[in-house]
């Protein structure tokens, strides 16, 4: 049975092969392309499930993970290796990623129907899935980084998929450049780590001995003095997370990324790619906490908590249905990052998994709403979709309650675990910020639900909305199932009745080495109160007296605060002022310098060269050089006449003689070729007889 682990490397290979096949061969047949993509991801899903259940049934997998490597390339004295590793964290990611991907692929069949670049879309998402799955099974940071970049590329291609729209094109570029800033830090971290330890494999880098060495090695950092190497490396790697998982201050790309097709938003910006950043922190968790009381976890906690609150306040004032979800994603990712900074390894990983399910569900639900409402994305133009899109409505409700943290749905258990950990570790500030973000989350989700689904339609499009095709609705149901029930695998063990019954399998599997979380009734009660309070406030403002067409948002009464939130704290404008404006200004200055200064220099050099040339011609060229040239020319003439005679008489004669001899021989031998089989046979037979006679005589 252990042998089944050997299938692991196949998981990212299936979508990769599908990508190559679609691009090279079947691009022209749209249906075949999409079926191939879905088939490939389904195969990956099946293999992942096999590996997952194998991992579940293997005792002590955390201490002795499955690991298999092949040699990749020799570089100087070191040998780079490629390999796959399955430990409990990989296993749960393998449960989540292919399942969500499969649902999204099926959904995309319906959503992308009729798109002129249908096949290309499926090719891209195949490549993307391959990148994500490869990242999950990779056994070293170098491979992880490569797959990470593959995903970055796909994200660029997919966000700018409808590149006829200038906004989509710009959003793709923005996402690519912004995440690249983070990736540059990540790469620096890798280089530093490799320089310090000589390896990038997880089992070597994260071994206690190496971590101890890293924690004790001091590096001199400008402005900060001596800092442990572990802290520097951890923070540089965290830079990659900040870019990829859209944490403040690199969060600006994710809301714009909503320009891409909705399956892409669900795939990249909810379930998989953005969680890759969090996955990286979970994976490198021991490194972050290598230095006792180090500053790396503090920074991580701060960034996470700040992002969680910051993004959820922006989400409150957005009107685009997908932008609300985008900011909500940023905020939830901040939650996970905060949890990991606090040392809540299991809670962070748990929230990562549950969030992927309900956020994918919400994104796909919003896509369903957008298609159903004839590509209307403004929530102010919707309303009353409850009766028109029943399945979408109910699944959306499940996703909303899960995100808001209403028991017993998945989001409640994972979010509460984070808050309880924060409270239990004495980080009261982090807990307070997290709770405030939880309240805001419940509020903006309530606002969204009441604006979109309740009341009366506020536009022509919403009035004629109808339910979307089956391929789009069924994945919603599957995801809603998981969004509702997945939380039960992580119920704290001391929770009455349920805790004893279920025994917290998630913690037992993923977090063997970590202390189990406890129920904190104060935290739990307060978080339920805040969640229902948020939803209730949403009802009071938007549900009790539904908005009618043209009525302003009740939040607008907040005045300048509302304006600030609606404009996302003017982040884009500030970045434009700080980064883009100076660069273009520098460019303008350079252009002026170029035109006036450089041109003068070039002209002067040109003119003096011309003057020098004229002088040279007059005084040196005419009298001296011309004489010499003429002499050489005449002697050359005489020599070439002699050579010409030799050429004609002797060399040509020889060549002609060879040619004539060849054509004479050809004429003579030609008569042998009668074209008749029997003639040839006769010649062959006669020759055989002659040979036999010769043999006998000699």
């Amino acid at each position, binding site marked *: 049975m252990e042998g089944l682990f050997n299938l692991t490397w196949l998981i990212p290979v299936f979508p990769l092969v599908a990508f190559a096949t679609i691009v090279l061969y079947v691009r022209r047949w749209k249906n075949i392309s999409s079926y191939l993509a879905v088939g490939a991801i389904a195969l990956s899903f099946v293999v992942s499930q096999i590996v997952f259940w194998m991992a579940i049934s293997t005792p002590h997998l955390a201490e002795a993970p499955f690991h298999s490597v092949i040699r990749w390339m020799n570089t100087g004295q070191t040998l780079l290796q490629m390999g796959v590793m399955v430990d409990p964290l990989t296993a749960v990611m393998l449960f989540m990623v292919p399942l969500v991907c499969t649902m999204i692929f099926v959904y995309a069949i319906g959503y992308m129907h009729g798109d002129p670049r249908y096949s290309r879309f499926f090719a891209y998402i195949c490549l993307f899935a391959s990148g994500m799955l490869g990242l999950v099974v990779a056994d070293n940071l170098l491979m992880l980084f490569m797959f990470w970049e593959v995903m970055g590329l796909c994200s660029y291609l997919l966000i700018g998929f409808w590149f006829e729209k200038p906004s989509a094109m710009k959003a793709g570029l923005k996402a690519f450049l912004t995440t690249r800033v983070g990736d540059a830090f990540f790469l620096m971290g890798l280089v530093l780590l490799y320089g310090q330890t000589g390896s990038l494999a997880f089992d070597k880098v994260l071994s206690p001995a190496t971590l101890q060495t890293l924690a004790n090695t001091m590096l001199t950092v400008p402005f900060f003095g001596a800092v442990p190497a572990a802290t520097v490396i951890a923070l540089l790697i965290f830079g990659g997370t900040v870019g990829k998982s859209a944490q403040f201050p690199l969060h600006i790309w994710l809301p714009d990324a909503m320009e891409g097709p909705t399956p892409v938003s669900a795939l990249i910006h909810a379930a998989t790619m953005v969680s890759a950043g969090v996955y990286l922190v979970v994976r490198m968790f021991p490194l972050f906490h290598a230095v006792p009381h180090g500053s790396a976890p503090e920074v991580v906690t701060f960034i996470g908590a700040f992002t969680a609150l910051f993004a959820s306040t922006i989400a409150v004032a957005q009107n685009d249905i997908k932008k609300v979800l985008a900011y909500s994603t940023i905020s939830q990712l901040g939650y996970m990052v905060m949890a990991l900074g606090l040392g809540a390894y299991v809670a962070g990983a748990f929230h990562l998994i549950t969030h992927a399910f309900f956020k994918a569900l919400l994104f796909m639900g919003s896509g369903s709403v957008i298609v159903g409402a004839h590509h209307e994305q403004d929530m102010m133009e919707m309303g009353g979709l409850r009766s028109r899109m029943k399945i979408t409505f109910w699944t959306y409700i499940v996703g909303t309650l899960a995100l808001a943290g209403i028991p017993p749905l998945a989001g409640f258990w994972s979010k509460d675990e984070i808050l309880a950990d924060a409270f239990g570790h004495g980080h009261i500030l982090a807990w307070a910020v997290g709770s405030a973000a939880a309240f805001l989350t419940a509020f903006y989700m309530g606002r969204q639900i009441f604006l979109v689904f309740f009341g009366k339609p506020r536009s022509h499009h919403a009035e004629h909305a109808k339910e979307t095709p089956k391929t789009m609705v069924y994945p919603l149901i599957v995801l809603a199932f998981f969004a509702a029930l997945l939380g039960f695998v992580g119920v704290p063990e001391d929770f009455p009745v349920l805790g004893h019954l279920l025994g917290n399998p998630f913690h037992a599997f993923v977090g063997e080495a970590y202390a189990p979380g406890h129920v904190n009734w104060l935290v739990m009660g307060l978080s339920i109160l805040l969640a229902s309070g948020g939803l209730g406030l949403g009802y009071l403002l938007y549900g009790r007296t539904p908005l009618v067409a043209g009525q302003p948002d009740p939040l607008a009464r907040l005045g300048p605060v509302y304006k600030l939130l609606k404009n996302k704290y003017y982040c884009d404008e500030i970045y434009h002022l700080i980064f883009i404006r100076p660069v273009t200004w520098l460019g303008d200055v350079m252009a002026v310098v170029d035109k006036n200064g450089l041109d003068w220099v070039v002209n002067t050099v040109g003119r003096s060269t011309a003057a020098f040339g004229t002088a040279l011609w007059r005084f040196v060229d005419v009298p001296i050089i011309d004489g010499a040239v003429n002499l050489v020319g005449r002697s050359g003439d005489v020599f070439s006449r002699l050579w010409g005679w030799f050429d004609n008489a002797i060399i040509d004669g020889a060549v002609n003689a060879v040619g004539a001899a060849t054509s004479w021989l050809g004429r003579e*031998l030609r*008569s042998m*070729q*009668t*074209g*008749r*089989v*029997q003639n040839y*046979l006769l010649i062959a*037979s006669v020759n055989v007889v002659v040979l036999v006679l010769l043999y006998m005589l000699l």
Partner: protein
Amino acid sequence: MIPLTWYLVLAAALFCIGLYGVLARRNAIGLLMGIELMLNAANINLLAFERYVAPNSLVGQAFVVFNITVAAAEAAVGLALIIAIYRSRDTVAVEDIDLLRG
């Protein structure tokens, strides 16, 4: 018991008849039949040598079975070629089939 030489003489005679057929017949089908005769002469040789020189070895018989198979395949391909030629040139006379004449 019949001496080995007799078989060899028979085979040589058969081979010569076949060779004559191949060299002298005008009809392409006759030519094919000549080839068959030559192959069978070789078969007789193989069997005779097996029986007289290396009995109990079965090697000769195995060869003969192969030969027969190859001959059948050759006949099938040859006939197909002749039919194709007949369709395109309306003749099976070998002296008229001289497209490769130099």
